[in-house]
């Protein structure tokens, strides 16, 4: 294998994303646009956790989707190990896809309702052409189920038979099975019951230490982000308004909006 180049794994440079909210009748040329993400630059190093905080509509989820290649930015570039997504060849793109995984807010919704857990966790192995052998795939899935603390029998169940917390564990297993370098966690615990949130957060931390994964941790919950993140980015109306370590941002916020956000948190 090639030597891994030093420096950040994933970067975005001055990315913006517009959505067309209204089109002219018949011809369909855009009439009104909405700038969801506006000129954001950001780099993620190996093994670190970057927290993105902001309220709904601040563009934090859209930014996550741009970084994860699920949405194309209308302006700017996303680079994985220095190569822009646009310029990647098939192999490079495959490697990028493998190394950047997602965990979504609604774990049940992120799984096909008619698939068994075994299929759900194993599917990335197939789509990313990592393992085509059936028996081997089963073994890998089994190991993964064990690693995220689920019972063995879970493999044959359907998502609807599991609780929210169990489903989020399945989602983590699915992201982890291809050994990614980065997992983008979009509000991974906000849909879960309070009594299981801590379990999932602990699990994410443990796995990070075991596998040296970087997290992009998107959340509106300041308490959770503060616990998870090394570095924090505060977003408001599509732009970054403040960045810094968790201590800097939450204990001595400079920006007006950040201050408001911290003050409104009940977790204080």
């Amino acid at each position, binding site marked *: 294998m090639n030597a891994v180049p030093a420096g950040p794994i994933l970067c975005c440079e001055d990315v913006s994303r517009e959505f067309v909210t209204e089109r002219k009748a018949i011809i369909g040329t855009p009439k009104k646009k909405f700038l969801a993400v506006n000129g954001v630059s950001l780099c993620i190093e190996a093994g670190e956790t970057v927290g993105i905080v902001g309220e709904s509509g601040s563009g934090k989820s859209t930014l996550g989707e741009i970084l994860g290649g*699920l949405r194309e930015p209308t302006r700017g570039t996303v680079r994985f190990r220095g190569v822009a997504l646009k310029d990647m060849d098939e192999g490079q793109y*495959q490697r990028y*896809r*493998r190394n950047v995984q997602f965990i979504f807010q609604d774990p049940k*919704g992120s799984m096909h*309702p008619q698939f068994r857990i075994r299929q759900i966790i194993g*599917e990335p192995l*197939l789509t990313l052409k990592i393992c085509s052998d059936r028996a081997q795939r089963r073994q890998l899935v089994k190991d993964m189920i064990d690693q995220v603390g689920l019972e063995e029998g879970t493999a044959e169940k359907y998502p609807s038979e599991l609780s929210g917390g169990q489903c989020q564990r399945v989602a983590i297993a699915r992201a982890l099975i291809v050994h990614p370098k980065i997992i983008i966690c979009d509000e991974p615990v906000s849909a879960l019951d309070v009594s299981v949130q801590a379990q999932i957060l602990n699990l994410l931390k443990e796995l990070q230490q075991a596998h040296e994964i970087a997290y992009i941790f998107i959340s509106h919950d300041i308490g959770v982000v503060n616990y998870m993140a090394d570095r924090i980015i505060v977003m408001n109306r599509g732009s970054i308004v403040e960045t810094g370590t968790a201590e800097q941002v939450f204990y001595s916020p400079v920006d007006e909006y950040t201050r408001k956000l911290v003050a409104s948190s009940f977790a204080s």
Partner: protein
Amino acid sequence: MTFLVVLLCLLSFIYMPHGPNDMNLALRFTAPGENPSYILGTDYFGRDIMSRIIYGSRSVLLVCFLAVAIGSVVGTLLGAIAAIVKGPLSAVIMRSIDGLMAFPGILLAMMMVAAVGKGKEGAIVAISIFMVPPFARLVYSLILDSENSLFIKAAKSYGITRSRLLRKHYLPLLLPRLITQFTACIGSAIMIETSLSFLALGVQPPNASWGLMLNEARQHFLQYPYLAIVPGLAISMAVLGFNLLGDGLNDLLQRRRS
């Protein structure tokens, strides 16, 4: 009721009171119930109506099943391609489907029959073309609907190919709706088939077909109304049966999902 119609069709392979084309000129226009061996009576040529109904169900069901099967496969593929590929190709497909829908159905069928030729084959082609738009539109809208759901997004996040997405993710989701649509379409296909054969564009005489029987009954309708009533009843029962089956399936599948 559908079960009854299908049973009737299967029955035609093993049992018929008389040959569907056997004539018994001595017993022309026997009224139903008059002669115990001709339960539903006989027609102008002294052919047994019961046997012709049973035999006719065979051709109706064959034509309709085949036609809807072809139409649903083609329609599903077109709709799926349009929904997944997007861009100009999608626009071309969907607009031509819309165009097809705007075209008067029976006229289109007549044109197709003229092009392909009369008889079963012509009817199958005509009806199957007629069945493409509903499936294409259904699949197109359902895929666009579920496209924004999180699990499709998740699948894209681990690099799924389009064809796998369609085969493994969308198809199982769509299947219940497609089955429902299929049975409902059979109902309307029966309507078209019988109108085609009524217009003498479908199954050719002397073979038995419900529409054809209606046509033949036309001349003697006033004296012998049962000639028209019996095949008419058969048609409406079959159509109603398939529609009810469609509704029932819909309810059943919906309930299973929730």
